[in-house]
């Protein structure tokens, strides 16, 4: 085996990326739970933990830059590092979206639930599953799976539209609900953006394997 150190570092950035994704998954899960259960402690934890997600992203980024500077990576090694660099940014931004949901949870914690959160929970479940599946597809270098996952963005978009419609009805029927309903549109929008970022990850998987950058499933929003 040649280039032992380089091989180990290449594996490490990919393992660290998966660990980062799991932190983001936890943040997504907790933020929606904090919202639906009006749990301010949990919401604050998501906000506090986002700093760790940001730090972890920068650590991975630094390792990637060090490898580029010192190891002159080429071909699939270069594509792996370039993909990780992009994906950690997407993951970190997903963490920010989860943090945004946690902040809405804090704003709405003292008010009675405006509506059933089943739709929002469903959106969160699908986006979370998409995100975890995309990391699995990255590990397996599975472009067919990446394309399937990216297509699931349509389900998230449809749910987003449905929730948005329900909130608009609430707002037009009762003007006192405009403010809390607007907050919930932010939540739905954040989840929709997370799914879009999963699509970005899927694009990177195709680049990693085929060396070609294709835009997948362009979102309406």
């Amino acid at each position, binding site marked *: 085996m040649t280039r032992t150190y380089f091989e180990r570092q290449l594996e490490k950035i990919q393992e660290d990326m998966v660990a980062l994704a799991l932190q983001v998954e936890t943040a997504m899960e907790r933020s929606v739970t904090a919202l639906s259960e009006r749990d301010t402690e949990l919401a604050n934890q998501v906000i506090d933990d986002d700093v760790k997600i940001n730090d972890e992203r920068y650590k991975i980024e630094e390792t990637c830059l060090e490898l580029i500077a010192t190891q002159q990576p080429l*071909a699939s090694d270069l594509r792996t590092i370039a993909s990780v660099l992009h994906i950690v940014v997407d993951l970190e931004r997903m963490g920010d979206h989860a943090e945004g949901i946690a902040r809405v949870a804090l704003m709405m914690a003292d008010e009675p639930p405006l509506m059933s959160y089943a739709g929002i929970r469903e959106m969160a479940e699908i986006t979370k599953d998409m995100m975890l599946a995309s990391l699995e597809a990255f590990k397996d270098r599975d472009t067919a799976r990446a394309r399937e996952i990216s297509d699931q963005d349509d389900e998230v978009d449809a749910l987003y539209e449905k929730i948005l419609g329900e909130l608009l009805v609430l707002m037009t029927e009762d003007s006192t609900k405009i403010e809390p309903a607007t907050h919930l549109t932010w939540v739905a929008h954040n989840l929709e953006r997370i799914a879009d970022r999963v699509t970005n990850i899927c694009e990177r998987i195709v680049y990693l394997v085929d060396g070609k950058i294709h835009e997948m499933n362009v979102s309406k929003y």
Partner: protein
Amino acid sequence: MEAEPDANTKMPTSENLEPEPADAMDFSDPLFALENVSFWYGSKQALGDITIKLPVNRVTALIGPSGCGKTTLLRCLNRMNELIPGVRLTGQVAYHGQDIYASDIDPVEVRRRIGMVFQKPNPFPKSIYDNVAFGARVNGYDGNMDELVERSLKQAALFDEVKDDLKKSGLALSGGQQQRLCIARTLAVGPDVILMDEPCSALDPIATLKIEDLIRELVSDFTIIIVTHNMQQAARVSDFTAFMLAGEDGAGRLVEYGPTQTVFTNPAEKRTEDYITGRFG
């Protein structure tokens, strides 16, 4: 020397030998067109069935592990290999469509038009001026020699550093300057092509970067074929890259040839990938 392909020694033809038209280069009218070129040093085969087209006014890099035949291939392009006794070539090396190994072709004229720069700077033990003027004098150049020397030194990006003392010995220059002097000497005889055999391997990083900058400058007027062991150098200076590898019989073959960007980011062949990522070689 045999110029005709020998049916008995014909080897299987490699695939993927024509680069994708990534920069819309027209390979229908290449500067060099090699067809089934095989080469032997005595009984030892060094090249096996090389078929490749090299475009004009581009830098093409030949890469591959030691012993894969890069330098042999380079030296086949201007008949330098003929200077070694007991060598044999089959196949065809066409330059502007003309077989350079044809019996009516003068090898000296071939080497004038297809110049060469070697691994170790090798200026003559003469003044800077005479180093540059030497080849032109031998060729009976009857123009203004001062102008030719100045123009060649300027093209080689050396003039400003030496203009105050052209009588100084070429050997008194630094390694990087000596290599640029050798490039000026090559340019002074008016070639179309410059073959470079690891031109920076004896130079420090700054001198190396100067030569690399020079290569990019020169390619607007000349065609450059460079052999290099330095992968980053190939990636920095070349437009096209050919990866060679010796087969089990020891003969070097072309494995992959394509636009440099593609070869270094997304090679088609696993053997190329393994070599450029340092997994072997």
